[in-house]
Each structure stands twice: as structure tokens, then as C-alpha cells.
């Protein structure tokens, strides 16, 4: 607002320009007063300083990795340690990572499996959640109880029997082997069921009387009304799948089928000395989720308080 004033006022008639300037002065005065009042509040200043120091400290590891990724390999491994690349910023590490090696392949595998997991999870959870919310059938209560009880089972303890099962199904070292065990999200069924419970039934009753099928009602009435929760569930399932380490690590040995987290892990152990490349890979792997966060910041933050709790 104040920045636009100097450029526009010369073209304006003098009186208007003056009035504008007055108004600008007045608002400047009031905000300054407001700021002065705030400045005199020592608690706020202390809070601000503490937070600023902590927030910057929190960003240090990411900045340090970013700076390293722009160094040449020689400089990254040289003593004394430089903070800002002295031989200039270079994209060599990124270019090497993207042109040779398997990072693009792993990124593709991650995208493919995470998308499939998200899609299947949302479809089967929404169908089950809708039935459990709206239909009266024998065994409904038992299913709800079983789903709730199962939330207590930590997936990590199942790696041994699940691996045996995957051996039996011939799914070790396949995409389906990565995907299928991750589509079971009992908390998400429960969350969707609770959300559907809160949608008034009158709309559906009317559609039912007009002879619409249940599937049609779910698709064209219930799901559109559930967009916020479906979005939150999708984002969470996707992030969880994208970042999952333990299960893909167990079920895949073939380097061509690895996801980003598991693939990058093998690079650490194989070529640990290429520091700049190592950091470039980490930055590239982090980038998609940083972009997702910047775009969906509000949904993610809101989702944490509803779905995030059950998602852990």
C-alpha cells in the first residue's frame, strides 16, 4: 500500500494527492503507535527472539545440506570446511545425480507406488466407511469393533509374517508387494465413517425414493460433500507411503524396484564419500514434499488435528 503511493501520486491532481498523503501519514502514525505499544510489551519481544533463534536453528541442517550440494566434490571433502561454496555455486552434483545413477528411476517407483497406495486406500476405505455409516447389516458392529481394536497392532511387528506371506504369494520384489500391505488403513476407515455420520441423511433419503442406487448416491452426493476429509486422508496416505522405509526395504531387493528412501539408503553405504552428490540426492528427494507442503499447507495443518492423530 505505502509502496504504491509515491509512484501514483505525481499523476494525480494536487488536492487528491495531498489527501492521499494525509491518509497515508495517518495510517503510518497509527501503525507506528501500534508498533510502539507492541514494542513496549517485553514478553512479546522475548517470545519473538526465542522463536526466531529456534526457527533459524531448525533450518540449519537443511541449509547446510543445500550449501554442500552446490559445492564441487573436491571442496565438499576439503579441510578447512567452508560454509558458502568458495569456488562458486555449481549444479554439478545435481546434474550427475539426475543423469547417471538410479535416482530418477527410484523417484518414478515412489510416485507410482505412492499414487497406487493412495488411490486404493481411499476407494476401499470410503466404500467400507460408507457402508458402516449408513447401512444396517448383520456384523456391522463386529467389524467396527475389529477395526478399532486393530489400530493397536503396530505394523512394524508384522514384517516377519508379512514377508513370509509375500514369499508365498510370489510378491517379493514386485510393485504389488510394496503396494498391497500399505493399503490397509484402519484409522482412515474409522475417520471416514465418523465424517459420513455427520452428513445429514435427508438428501440421500430423497435420492433413494427417486430410485437412485446406493453407489450413485455415494458418488454424487456423499463424496462431493466429503471433499475436505478425502483431501486430508489422501494427503496423509500419500506422504506416509512416499516416506515409508521399513516395508519397501524388507520386500524389495532389486535396485530397479526400490523407492526413493530405500534406494538412497543403498547409495549411502556404497558411495558414502561423494558428499555433494549425497546432499543433492537428499535435496531432490525432499523437494516434492516441500512443494506439496507449500501448496497444501492449510489442509495439512488442519488434517493433523483430525486424521494425523490416527495416522501415526
Amino acid at each position, binding site marked *: 500500500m505505502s509502496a504504491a503511493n509515491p509512484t501514483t501520486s505525481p499523476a494525480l491532481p494536487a488536492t487528491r494527492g495531498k489527501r492521499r498523503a494525509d491518509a497515508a501519514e495517518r495510517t503510518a502514525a497509527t501503525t507506528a503507535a501500534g508498533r510502539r505499544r507492541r514494542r513496549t510489551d517485553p514478553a512479546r519481544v522475548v517470545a519473538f527472539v*526465542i*522463536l526466531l533463534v*529456534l*526457527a533459524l536453528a*531448525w*533450518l540449519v*541442517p537443511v541449509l*547446510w545440506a543445500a550449501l554442500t550440494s552446490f559445492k564441487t566434490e573436491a571442496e565438499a571433502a576439503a579441510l*578447512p*570446511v567452508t560454509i558458502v561454496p568458495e569456488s562458486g555455486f555449481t549444479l554439478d552434483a545435481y546434474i550427475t545425480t539426475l543423469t547417471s545413477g538410479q535416482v530418477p528411476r527410484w523417484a518414478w517407483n515412489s510416485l507410482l507406488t505412492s499414487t497406487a497406495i493412495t488411490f486404493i486406500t481411499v476407494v476401499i476405505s470410503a*466404500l467400507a466407511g460408507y*457402508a458402516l*455409516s449408513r*447401512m*444396517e*447389516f*448383520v*456384523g*456391522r*458392529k463386529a*467389524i*467396527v469393533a475389529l477395526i478399532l481394536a*486393530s489400530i*493397536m*497392532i503396530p505394523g*512394524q*511387528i*508384522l*514384517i*516377519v*509374517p*508379512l*514377508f*513370509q506371506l509375500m514369499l508365498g504369494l510370489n510378491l517379493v520384489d514386485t510393485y504389488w508387494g510394496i503396494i*498391497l500391505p500399505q*493399503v*490397509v488403513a*484402519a484409522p482412515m*476407515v474409522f475417520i471416514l465413517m465418523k465424517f459420513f*455420520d*455427520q452428513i445429514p441423511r435427508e438428501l440421500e*433419503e430423497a435420492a*433413494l425414493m427417486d430410485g437412485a442406487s*446406493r453407489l450413485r448416491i455415494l458418488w454424487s452426493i456423499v463424496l462431493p460433500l466429503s471433499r475436505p476429509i478425502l483431501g486430508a486422508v489422501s494427503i496423509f496416505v500419500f*506422504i506416509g507411503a512416499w*516416506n515409508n*522405509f*521399513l516395508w519397501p526395504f*524388507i520386500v524389495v531387493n532389486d535396485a530397479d524396484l526400490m523407492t526413493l528412501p530405500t534406494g*538412497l*539408503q543403498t547409495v*549411502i553405504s556404497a558411495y558414502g564419500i561423494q*558428499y555433494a552428490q549425497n*546432499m543433492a540426492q537428499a535435496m531432490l*528427494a525432499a523437494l516434492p514434499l*516441500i512443494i506439496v*507442503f507449500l501448496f497444501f499447507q492449510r489442509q495439512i*495443518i488442519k488434517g493433523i488435528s483430525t486424521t*494425523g*492423530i490416527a495416522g501415526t
Partner: protein
Amino acid sequence: MTTADGVTVPRTSPRPNAALTGGPISEGRRRRRRAENIRGWVYCLPFLIAFGLFLIWPTIYGLWMSFTGTSLAGTKTGFVGLANWTEALGDANVWTSLANTAVFTVLSSIPLVLIAMGLAILVNVGLPGQWFWRLAFFLPFLLASTVVSKFWNWMYNPQLGLVNTVLGWFGITGPAWLQDPSTAMISVVITTVWWTIGFNFLLYLAALQNIPDQLYEAASLDGAGRWRKFRSITVPQLAPTTVLVLVLQLLSSLKVFDQIYQMTSGGPGGDTRPVLLYIYEVGFTGYRLGYASAISYIFFFMIIIVSLAYMVISSRRSVKA
């Protein structure tokens, strides 16, 4: 299921279309009920198949495996009774890895709850730049464990890392953080706090924003100062959230695997090896799936105890309220 909404039609009431079609009530209704039964199951079926196959079955099968000598090498020794269980209880590695898990859980949970609460309270004061605080503290939570481990392995690098470089400016020679038995665990804990604090931070922030303003206004009218308001309103209002955050934190800290495997591989000398890593080593590098299952179940019981403790606490709380 208890629905919160009082407006909707009760489940048991006849559906309007059922009433309209008329006819002999009993027969039409029975047919409709049977259709509804089938439809309900059909809708649940895709989920139930995956749920049964990939969650329930492995849970049961894992228990069975713990009584067998199943091996990844293919040699199938059958039922061995309680042999795996008695061996596990006498295995020093089981006990040290359980102890490491407990140490990690305590060391990480305390700062992850307290610092998250402190950060949320500071941010909730209403400072400018809300998006920046959220970005800074929450962003690491979105990163994959491998990325986090890469960042911190590089931070902790004894010669080239930032930590020892900065210490060097002050004339301090830092240790080899991840290789030194006296600093390895605390280093992993610091990384974990950095990585996961954003989640608890957001839960606290949401809780703080749910405290009604009237409480503070009423307290101000009564002449309460800032500290008094904090102690008598903020702290008690946050209590239920703290119980929830603490339990979620305990459960997720107990399940630690990724960052320890990636940063120290459980070393030095098994000093940071958590129980999940030992299960992995026994099962997948030692090929003893049966024995690994038995250890998994011992761990499972610990998790159940924490979960049940939470349920008891929270139900007692709701009875009181």
C-alpha cells in the same frame, strides 16, 4: 455406533421408501433387509479382504511362527513349543535392545512433548509471520527418514560436519558423534527431536486455539496477571492434549527403527540398537524367522500395555468429567 447429530433419522426407524411400497410388511421388509445385509458386506469386502490378508492373518500367523523353527534359508523345522520364547527371555541382546528402546523412548519423548508445548505457546502469543514458524518447525516432519539421516550424518561428520566445525571455532574438538558410545544415542535423539517435533507442535497449537477466549477475558476482569492466567487456564486446558501427545509419542518412539538403522546401524557395539532392529537382524540377516517372531510378540505386549494404560487413564478422566 453413537452419532453426535441429533437431527438425523434414527437408524431403527423404517425407511420412507419401505413404508411407501406397502404390501405385506413382513415379506417386503425381510427381502429388503437381506439385500441390505448383502450390500453392506459387498461394500466392506474390498477393505475386509486386504484387512484380513495383510493385517489380521499376519498377526495370527506371526504368533504361530513364534512357536516354530521357521527359517528364511528354507529349512523348515516345525513346532518347537516354547523354545523360541525361553531363548528370547535368556538372550542378552533382547534385553539390551529393549533397554536401548526404553532409553531412546524416555530421552526423546520428554523434549518432544515439552519443547513442542513451549514452541506452540510462544507461537500462540500472536507474533507476526505465523506461516514462517509453522514452516520452520513442521517441515522436517514431512521428510523421509533417509533424507533426515543424510542431513544429520553430514552434520555429525567428525571432520567435515557443521557441528564440529562450529565447535572448532570456539577451540573445542568435538567427538565422533555417531561412533562414540557416549554420544551416539543422544545424537540420534537430537535428530529425532528435530525431525518429528512439528507433529506435536501442531497438535498443541490446535489445542491452544481451542481454548475459549472468554476464559482469559473473565480472568483479566478478575485482575489476573499473565503468569496467573497461564497457570490457571492454559496449563489445565492443555492437560488432555498432553496426555494424548505423550501416549502417541511413547508409541511412536518405541517403534524407532529407520533413523537408527541409517545413522548408526545400531552401533557402536549395539549401544543404540532398538528392539525392532534386533528383530530385523535376527529374522532377515540371521534367517531365524521363528525366533524373530517370538521377539516381535514380546515387543507387541509392551505396546499393548502402553495403549491399555492410555485407555484406562482417558476413560477415568471422562468419568470424572
